[in-house]
Structure formats: structure tokens, C-alpha cells
């Protein structure tokens, strides 16, 4: 969740209670040690491995047809999943934060459900629902529609896994903002869509954007669920992470890490965008 700015503290300047310098140094040192072993070394490793056979090989690995097909499939998935889940997130957040109704807490819990489900199970449920061995799936097959082991399967599994991201960003944000502005607009004669477009949307745009970015990041990187429903057909149902896995299991480490480096780059970008948006958010809310 994006951090929301805290109200300004009292004007009196107070000395912040702090720990003795040696304690500070020791604790910072320990933290750094953790970051080095768990964050920096793995990141460094990706690039070291990716370039272990030189630039040429790196470029070749990410430009070979199977890799490009994987990128294409992943982008297609993102292009379908993110708008759908964003639309849902906004709708659900509107329903939950602008109205009082019984069962609100239960609904909120249900929204978080996919977070508690193992990615493998997320894949499994769609195999059970529309796999070729199920009644519904075989009926679909007779109509010439194939879902599992093809792109639609990857899309719905990803839809499930990234389902809560946008709603989760927006609900606390809209709860904090309350209904006053919308109700004021109502008394001034605005209609439903006008209120939403002119009042609500501008207020939540950064949260919405961040939710969509999280949703894209997870869509790009989802492995377990997609792995179950994809069938691993090269050039057809391989997303980027699956491609990385195949290369890795063929002991083609340099190529595997080369493709993985794209994902690392996207992850770093996501983290960077989050920081930027948080600052933007803070700046914006000072105008309120």
C-alpha cells in the first residue's frame, strides 16, 4: 500500500530520542548484512551470470524467437488482465467505501482470498473448472475452444492471482478520503458519472496507478499458477518466467539469467515507481 502522509507534528522542535552510536552502527551493520546476502548478492548474480558469455550472447538470448514469443505472450496477458482487474478494483472500492451495507467485512475478506491461495492451487482450480477432462471443458473443446494449455488459461489464472491488487490499494485510500466531497458534489447537482469522473477519480489516481503497476508486475512474474495451466509449449504458451525456467532446467544458465535480467529490471522499475508515486502522493495531499 502507498504510505499516506501523516499530519504535521507539533511545531515544537524536540530532540528525537535515539540509541547510542555504537548500537546504531551495529544494528545498521546487521541490516546491511541481511540486505547483502538476500538482496544485493542475488541481484548481482543475475547480471554476472547474464553477461558471463559476453554481450553478444546476452543480446542473442533475449532476441531469439522463443524469447520474443514469451515476451509477446506475457505482454498480451498483461494487456488483458490489468484493465479488467483495474475496472473491478475501482468498482469494488466504490461499492465498499461509499456505502454502508451488511456483510461489508465479509466482502473485504473475500477480496483478499487469492492472497491466501497457493499459486499452484490457483492454477489447479482452473484445470478443474475448464480442463479438457472436465465436463465443462470437454464441452468447450467440442465447440473448438481450448482454455487450459493455451493463452486463455494463462489469462484467467493470472486474473485470479492478481485479482485483489487494485482494490486493495484503493479501499484504504478511499476510506481515508471519506464521502464528503462526493456528497458535496451531489448537493451541487452533479450526477453519478460526473461525481466519479470529476471528484473521485482525480483523488485516487495515484493509488489506482500504483495498484495497476503492482498488478502488471505480478502478471508479468506469475510462475506457479501459469505453470500449471500453460503446458509449457515453446513459442506458444510460454511466458517469460516459464521461458526462464526451461532454459535453466536445460542448464543454459547464461541464457536463462539473460532473460531473467529483463524481469529484474522490471521489478526494480516497479520499486522505483512506487517511491516516486509516494512522493507525488505526499506532495499532492498538501494541496488538500
Amino acid at each position, binding site marked *: 500500500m502507498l504510505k499516506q502522509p501523516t499530519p504535521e507534528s507539533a511545531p515544537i522542535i*524536540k530532540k528525537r530520542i*535515539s*540509541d547510542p552510536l555504537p548500537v546504531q552502527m551495529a*544494528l*545498521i551493520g546487521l541490516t546491511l548484512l541481511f*540486505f547483502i546476502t*538476500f*538482496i544485493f*548478492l*542475488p*541481484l548481482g*548474480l543475475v547480471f554476472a551470470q547474464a553477461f558471463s558469455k559476453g554481450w553478444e550472447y546476452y543480446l542473442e538470448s533475449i532476441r531469439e524467437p522463443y524469447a520474443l514469443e514469451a515476451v509477446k505472450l506475457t505482454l498480451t496477458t498483461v494487456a488483458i488482465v490489468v484493465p479488467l482487474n483495474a475496472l473491478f478494483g475501482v*468498482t469494488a472500492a466504490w*461499492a*465498499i467505501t*461509499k*456505502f454502508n*451495507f*451488511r*456483510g461489508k467485512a465479509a466482502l473485504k475478506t473475500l477480496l*483478499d*482470498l487469492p492472497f*491466501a*491461495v*497457493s*499459486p*499452484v*492451487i490457483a492454477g*489447479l*482450480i482452473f*484445470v*478443474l473448472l475448464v480442463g479438457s*477432462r472436465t465436463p465443462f471443458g470437454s464441452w468447450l473443446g467440442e465447440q473448438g475452444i481450448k482454455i487450459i494449455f493455451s493463452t486463455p488459461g494463462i489469462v484467467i489464472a493470472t486474473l*485470479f492471482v492478481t485479482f485483489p491488487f487494485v482494490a486493495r490499494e484503493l479501499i484504504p485510500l478511499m476510506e481515508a478520503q471519506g464521502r464528503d466531497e*462526493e456528497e458535496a458534489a*451531489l448537493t451541487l447537482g452533479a*450526477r*453519478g458519472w460526473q*461525481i*466519479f469522473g470529476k471528484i473521485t477519480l482525480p483523488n485516487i489516481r495515484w493509488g489506482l496507478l500504483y495498484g495497476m503497476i*503492482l498488478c502488471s*508486475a505480478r502478471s508479468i*512474474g506469475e*510462475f*506457479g499458477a501459469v*505453470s*500449471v495451466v500453460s503446458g509449457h509449449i515453446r513459442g506458444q504458451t510460454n511466458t517469460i*518466467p*516459464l521461458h*526462464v525456467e526451461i532454459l*535453466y532446467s536445460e542448464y543454459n*544458465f547464461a541464457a*536463462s539469467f539473460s532473460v531473467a535480467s529483463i*524481469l*529484474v529490471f522490471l*521489478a*526494480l522499475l516497479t*520499486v522505483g515507481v*512506487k*517511491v516516486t508515486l509516494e512522493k507525488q502522493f505526499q506532495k499532492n495531499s498538501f494541496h488538500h
Partner: protein
Amino acid sequence: MELFQGKRRNILPGFGLSMGYTVFYLSAIVIVPLSMIFFNTIPMGWEPFLHTVTAPRVLASYRLSFSTALFAAIFDAIVGLLTAWVLVRYRFAGRQFLDALVDLPFALPTAVAGICFATLYSPVGWLGETFAKWNIEIINSPTGIVVALIFIGFPFVVRTIQPVLEEVEQEIEEAAQCLGATRWQTFRKILLPHLFPALLTGSTLAFARGIGEYGSVIFIAGNLPMKTEIAPLMIMSKLDQFDYAGASAVALVLLLISFSMLLLLNAVQEWQQKEYR
């Protein structure tokens, strides 16, 4: 929509539309597919179900997933608290950089994390080499699984503690000081109890995530039956054999564990809020 209509009349427009769409989408994407687990397990009957989920290999996988996730969650609780403390309380060069990188495990695809740790800790890897000298095997062992899960669960703990720690009023600590408490006493008797619910929440989230985690684990685990086979992998291998009922049975137990964890957590949080807020 009668069911959801509250006592207070709602003033803003769009309740029916937004609620209708929410419930429809939620059912189509989440509820109906998830219910398949039950519909595929129920026809099995009780005996075969028990037989499937108590088979030694399956039990071993539950035990492994549960224990590795627990160890990782405990480690995350400690490191997460440390990191949150350092990030909130101290000012040093690179602090914001570290703060931003806390989210990396959220953003990094799990498969990439998996191959990174597998390579890093392989006997010829940067860190594995050193451990190999001491005869500590990390790859293909539960230790390796714990390492991967620590990485995955870390941000949950930091991000739940951070806001709570930021909101601790300075007066609370000053009051303790004026009453003669040392820094350590203040931390142990005042701050730690204050942070405890967040700490519990964060590590439970890390734990729940760890039980179901797949991508980052399979590369480092080695997947040896009875030894390093995690529960999600059991589901995977049953699926590969087209044993749909068996896969759902294993999944059902795993789901029930994670759900009850989260329900328990919710209950604890509610109780905490009633008591102290």
C-alpha cells in the same frame, strides 16, 4: 441486492451497479473456481480422501512446507523488526535506497528469485562454496527452502511494522525515561508489546505465503521425495499424473490450513483492537 442494503439509506448513486458487478466478478473469478476444489474432493468419499492426504509422502510434504515456512517466518520476524527499526529510527546515507528495496521480493518474479538462490548456494556458487567448506548443504535441503522463504516473506514483516513504529508517540518513550527506565527496558516493556500485534500479523502473512510458495522454492529444493518435496509440488505431481481428485484433496488441506491461519489472525487483531484502542 436486498441482502446488502444497510439500515442507513445510501445517498450516493451507483450502489446497485457497482455492487452487482463486484459480486459477479468475484464469483466468476474467485468463488466458483475455488469451489471446484470441494466439488472434486467430495465425490472421493471420506476413506480415500484420508488415504490420500495421510500417505507418507504427502504427510512429509505438509510437514516440510509447514516447518520451513515457520522457521522462515520466525527469522523474518527478527530481521523484519531489525530492518523496520533501523529504517524508521536511524538516519544514514542510503536509507531511502534500502527502504525502497524492501519491496523487491514483492516485485521480483518468484522464478527469478528461485534460480538466483539455487545458483548462489550451489556448491560452486558465491555463497555455497563457503558453506560447502564447512560441510553445510543448503541446496537440495530444507535449509535452502527456508532461505528462499525468508526472502519471500521479508517485506510482509517490515511493511506491517513500519507504520506502527512510525506512529509511536515520542512522549511514550520520554515518559518511560523520566520514570527511570533504561533504553532496553523501554524497548522490552513498552515498545515491543506495542509492536507485537504488527509483528504477529506480518509474520503470519509471511508464514501463510510460505506454505503455498512454489516458484522460488522448487529450484533450490531439489524435490527429493520424502525429503525436500513441498506440498504445492505434491499437487503439481498429482496433476501431472491426471489424478485430479488426489490433487484437490491435497490442495483442500493446504487451503484449510492457510484460511484458518488468516481467520485466527483476524480474530486476534479484532480482540487486540477492542482491548487497547
